[in-house]
C-alpha cells in the first residue's frame, strides 16, 4: 500500500513552472528520495506535501488524506525537518521538543516519555538541557530529527537533511536517519542534491529536473541501466569515436558530452583493447581512459545530459531570487 500518492501535482508561479505535473507513489516504511539540482522543484514539492504551499493543480494524498481538503489530518500524521534550521536557539533542546509536543497536543506522561525516547535515538540525552545556540550544526540537525519524530508521525519529511554539514557529520546524520527508519518503522521522504546521500539512504530515487520527474527506480537499477561498468574516454574527435563504437554489440549505453564519451558495458577489462584498436583504425587520439562502477552522477548525466553541478544556480542567482 502506498502511503504517499501524488498525481499530476503542479505549482506555477507567475512565469515559472516550479513543479510541472509530477506523479509518484511512496510505499510504507520506504526511504524515498528526490534527487535533483537546486531549483529543480524539490523544496516546492515538499512544501506542498506538508501543506505549507497550495498546489496550483493536481492531488497529493498522505496516509489517505488529501493535502488540500484535510490539511489538519495531514499535519498530524507527518513530521518535518526543514532545509534551514527551525529551532528556537534561546530554548534548550528539551524545551524545543516540549514546545513541539504541546503544539501537537500530547499529554504530560506521554510527552515526557517520548522526549526521553527521541533524545536517546539521536544521542542527545546529555545535551538536553543546553541552550540550542550552543549546539553544533550536526547536533542541531539531530535535535530536529528527534523533534520531527516526537508526535509519532507516519511519514517524516527531510528537506536536504545534510546541507551545510561537513562530510564526517553528514555520515553520522545518515546513520541516524537509517536507524530511525528501522527502529521507528517510519516512512521517510527526503530531498537531496548529494548523489552519495540518495545512494546510501534511499530505497528508491526519483530524479527531478526543471519541475519534472525523469525517472524513478532503485539506485542499483538506475545504475545498472547504464551498464555494469562505466568507461569514460576523453579523445580528439568525440563524434567520430561514438559513431565507430556504436556499432559494437557489447556497448550497452553510450553518450557524448563535448569530447567526453561515457560508455556502459560489462567485463570492461576485455573491452579496453578493442576500444584502443577501433581508435587506432579511425585515427582518433585518445587522451585518457577512466574505468569505474557507475554512480548516480552518471545516471543523472545520462538522463539530463548535464552534470548535477553544472546546473546549480549560482549564489548570486539565489540572492537575486530571494530579494528581487
Amino acid at each position: 500500500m502506498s502511503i504517499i500518492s501524488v498525481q499530476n501535482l503542479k505549482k506555477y508561479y507567475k512565469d515559472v513552472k516550479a513543479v510541472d505535473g509530477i506523479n509518484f507513489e511512496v510505499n510504507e516504511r520506504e526511504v524515498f528520495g528526490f534527487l535533483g539540482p537546486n531549483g529543480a522543484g524539490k523544496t516546492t514539492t515538499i512544501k506542498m506535501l506538508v501543506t505549507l504551499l497550495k498546489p496550483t493543480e493536481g492531488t497529493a494524498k498522505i496516509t489517505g488524506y488529501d493535502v488540500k481538503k484535510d490539511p489538519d489530518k495531514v499535519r498530524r500524521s507527518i513530521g518535518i525537518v526543514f532545509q534551514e534550521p527551525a529551532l528556537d536557539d534561546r530554548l534548550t533542546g528539551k524545551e524545543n521538543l516540549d514546545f513541539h509536543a504541546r503544539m501537537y497536543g500530547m499529554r504530560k506522561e506521554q510527552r515526557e516519555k517520548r522526549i526521553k525516547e527521541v533524545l536517546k535515538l539521536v544521542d542527545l540525552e546529555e545535551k538536553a538541557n543546553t541552550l540550542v545556540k550552543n549546539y553544533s550544526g550536526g547536533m542541531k540537525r539531530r535535535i530536529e530529527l528527534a523533534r520531527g519524530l516526537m508526535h509519532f508521525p507516519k511519514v517524516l519529511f527531510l528537506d536536504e537533511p545534510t546541507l551545510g554539514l561537513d562530510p564526517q557529520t553528514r555520515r553520522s546524520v545518515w546513520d541516524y536517519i537509517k536507524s530511525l527508519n528501522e527502529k521507528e518503522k517510519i516512512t521517510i521522504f527526503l530531498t537531496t542534491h548529494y548523489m552519495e546521500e540518495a545512494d546510501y539512504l534511499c530505497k528508491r530515487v526519483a530524479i527531478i529536473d526543471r519541475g519534472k520527474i525523469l525517472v524513478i527506480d532503485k539506485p542499483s537499477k538506475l545504475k545498472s541501466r547504464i551498464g555494469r561498468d562505466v568507461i569514460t574516454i576523453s579523445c580528439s574527435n568525440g563524434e567520430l569515436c561514438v559513431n565507430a563504437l556504436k556499432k559494437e554489440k557489447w556497448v550497452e549505453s553510450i553518450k557524448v558530452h563535448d569530447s567526453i564519451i561515457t560508455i556502459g558495458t560489462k567485463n570492461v577489462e576485455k573491452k579496453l583493447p578493442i576500444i584502443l584498436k577501433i581508435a587506432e583504425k579511425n585515427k582518433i587520439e585518445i587522451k585518457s581512459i577512466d574505468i569505474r562502477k557507475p554512480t548516480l552522477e552518471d545516471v543523472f548525466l545520462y538522463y539530463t545530459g548535464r552534470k548535477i553541478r553544472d546546473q546549480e544556480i549560482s549564489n548570486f542567482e539565489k540572492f537575486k531570487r530571494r530579494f528581487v
Partner: protein
Amino acid sequence: MISLNYQAIYVIWLRQMKRFIRDKGRLISNFIQPFLFLAVLGFGLNAASFPGLPSNLRYIDILAPGIIVWSILFPSVFIGLSILWDRQFGFLQEVLVAPVNRLSIVIGTTLGGATIAILQGLIVFFVSLVLGVSIKISLLLILAPVFMILTSFVAIGIGLTIASKMESIEGFQFIVSLLIMPLLFLSGSFSPLDTMPSWLRTIAFFDPITYGVDGLRASLIGYSYFPFYISLTVLITLSIVMMGLGSYFFNKSEV
C-alpha cells in the same frame, strides 16, 4: 466555529516568558529607561506649573501614567518584531505547520506580549511609588490594570498588522519608529491635554494612546481630561478593532 488549542496557546505564551526572562540585557534596559525618564524629567521639570490643573498635582504625578503607558507600548508593538524574527530564523514554519489554527497562535502570541507589557508597566508603577508619585486610593484604582491591558492589546494589534505587511525586520523597525514616537508624544503622556493648544489637542483625540494615558491618569492620580468611562469605551472598541485587524492580516500572511 474554530475550536481553540489551549495547550498550544499556553506553550506559545510560555516560550515568550522564557525568552523574556533569559534576555538579561533587555530586562535591564527596559527597567532603566523608564526609570531615567521618570526620575530626570519628573524631578527636572518639578518647578513647571500647569495653570488650570489641581494645585496639589506635581509634574511627576502627571508624568508617571504616561511613562507607564510608554513602557507598555514598546514591548507590545515589538511582538510584531518577534514574529518577523521567527520568520527569518525559520521557527515560524515549525509553528505554522503544527495542527493548530492561526487564531490560537495569535491568541498565544498576544497573551505573551501582553503579560510582558503588563509586567513592565507594573515595574514602572512601583518605581513611581518609590519616587513618591502620589497615588490616589479609590475604587478607580482597580481599573488601572484594565487600562494597561487594553492599551497593550491596541499596540499588539498595531504590531501584528505592521509585521504581517512587512517583509523585513529593518522595514518593521523603520515603520515602528516612524509611528510610535508621534503616537507617544501626541498622546499627552508628557503634558496634560488641558494645557495643549486646541489644534494639538484635536490631533491627540485621534491618537489611540491618548485614551490609555488619560484612563490610567483617572485611575492612578484621580485627574483626567475625559471621564474614565469614555476612555474605557474607546479603548475597548479600539482594542477589538486593532486585534481583529492584526489577526486578519496575520492569517493572510504567508510563510
